[in-house]
């Protein structure tokens, strides 16, 4: 199934300073317009295919991030936007930050930058879309083989 043109985004702010969040939004607004790639920003994790997470993980948001990830249907792709989501960044040594997004969920694509620029966020989305297509194909093949076995 060709899903390249219709992946939906879910955006969640872990503990970022808002810089990356507004860059994610800026990437979706007319000047950069990531929506031309067919992505739509959705608020519902159950309809989302690509999870954009900004900011590091702290004790309070760790279960929230985990739950959002679990609620998303398979196949899914996770993009960590900004250094804080990649490694914890400048806040790595603070007492309340556990680390990057990969401390609680598996991250596929890392977008560096502080704040990550809209261009690099779009690049991350493009890579995520390709990976999403690949995973979707694998998923289809798996379903087919299981049907064949029955």
């Amino acid at each position, binding site marked *: 199934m060709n899903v390249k043109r219709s992946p939906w985004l879910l955006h969640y702010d872990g503990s970022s300073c808002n810089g990356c969040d507004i860059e994610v939004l800026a990437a979706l607004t*007319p000047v950069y317009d990531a929506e031309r790639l067919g992505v739509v920003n959705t608020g519902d994790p159950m309809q989302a295919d690509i999870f954009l997470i900004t900011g590091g993980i702290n004790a309070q948001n760790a279960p929230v991030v985990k739950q959002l990830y679990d609620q998303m249907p398979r196949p899914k792709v996770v993009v960590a936007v900004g250094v804080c989501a990649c490694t914890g960044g*400048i806040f790595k040594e603070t007492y309340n930050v556990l680390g990057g997004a990969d401390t609680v969920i598996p991250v596929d694509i890392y977008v560096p930058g502080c704040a990550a620029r809209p261009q690099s966020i779009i690049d991350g989305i493009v890579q995520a879309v390709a990976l999403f297509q690949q995973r979707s194909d694998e998923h289809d093949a798996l379903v087919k083989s299981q049907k064949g076995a029955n």
Partner: protein
Amino acid sequence: MGKKSVVPFGPQHPVLPEPLHLDLVIEDEVVEEAIPSIGFIHRGLEGLAEKRDFNEMMYIAERTCGICSFGHGLGYVEAVEHIMNVQVPDRARYLRTIWSELERLHSHLLWLGLAADAFGFESLFYEAWRIREKVLDIHEMTCGGRLIFSVNKVGGVLRDINADQQKFILDQMNVLEKEIKNIAKVFLEDYSVQSRSKGIGVLTTKQAHELGAVGPFARACGIKNDIRLTGYCAYGELDFEPIVSNDCDCYARLEVRIKELFQSIDLVRQAFAKIPAGELETKVAGFPKGEYFVRI
């Protein structure tokens, strides 16, 4: 009297750029009460201040908030400069003023866009953010970053704005003024915007005072309070009047912010007209010791 019910809202929600959890108490489809629980983005910057050098801390202070980063950094360096008794050169003071006003422009446009998004006016949101990109281009040209400036340092600034850049910024101010006038008309005169903002979210002057409201929010509640009047940076040498509205509702907040956009453009022009040539920073020796309180 209807039955009361509680609807959980957040921490993840499409209209929220930041996580916040609200328990909305609803009666007859009207929100009667909202009980917040916060702390989802708590990082613990204050702990980091103990581990870092005071010069490095400026960059961390800026990352308190990506939308108003310059303001946070400015507050930090002003405080340290007062403790260390450092006299900042005039040119640096004016440059700081210009950057703060540019940041105010981008921040207000962002707020207005998100407000438009929240009351369901998608095209107005896109228009406000399209105009905002012009301000971000100026940030990028003068500082290298779109949101995080990192041009302040204890004792002055790191970068200068040269004559070519100054001309470009002043040209852009004319363009911005024209474009903001277009969206101002929609924000202030459109029927659908008025029906979603007039008389909504009223915070009386007394309540605002008791709750300690600040900035444009307080000014929209009729409190004539503008910290810029205290004259930090070069504000003491520029001519402006705080913009106040007495309506206390969401419409007043839109109005105050839109008028402040024009005020910021005016302040940038004034600052460029008065900016003196000279040094960008003074040498700083020793370490800060003491306490100081700054309001920005």
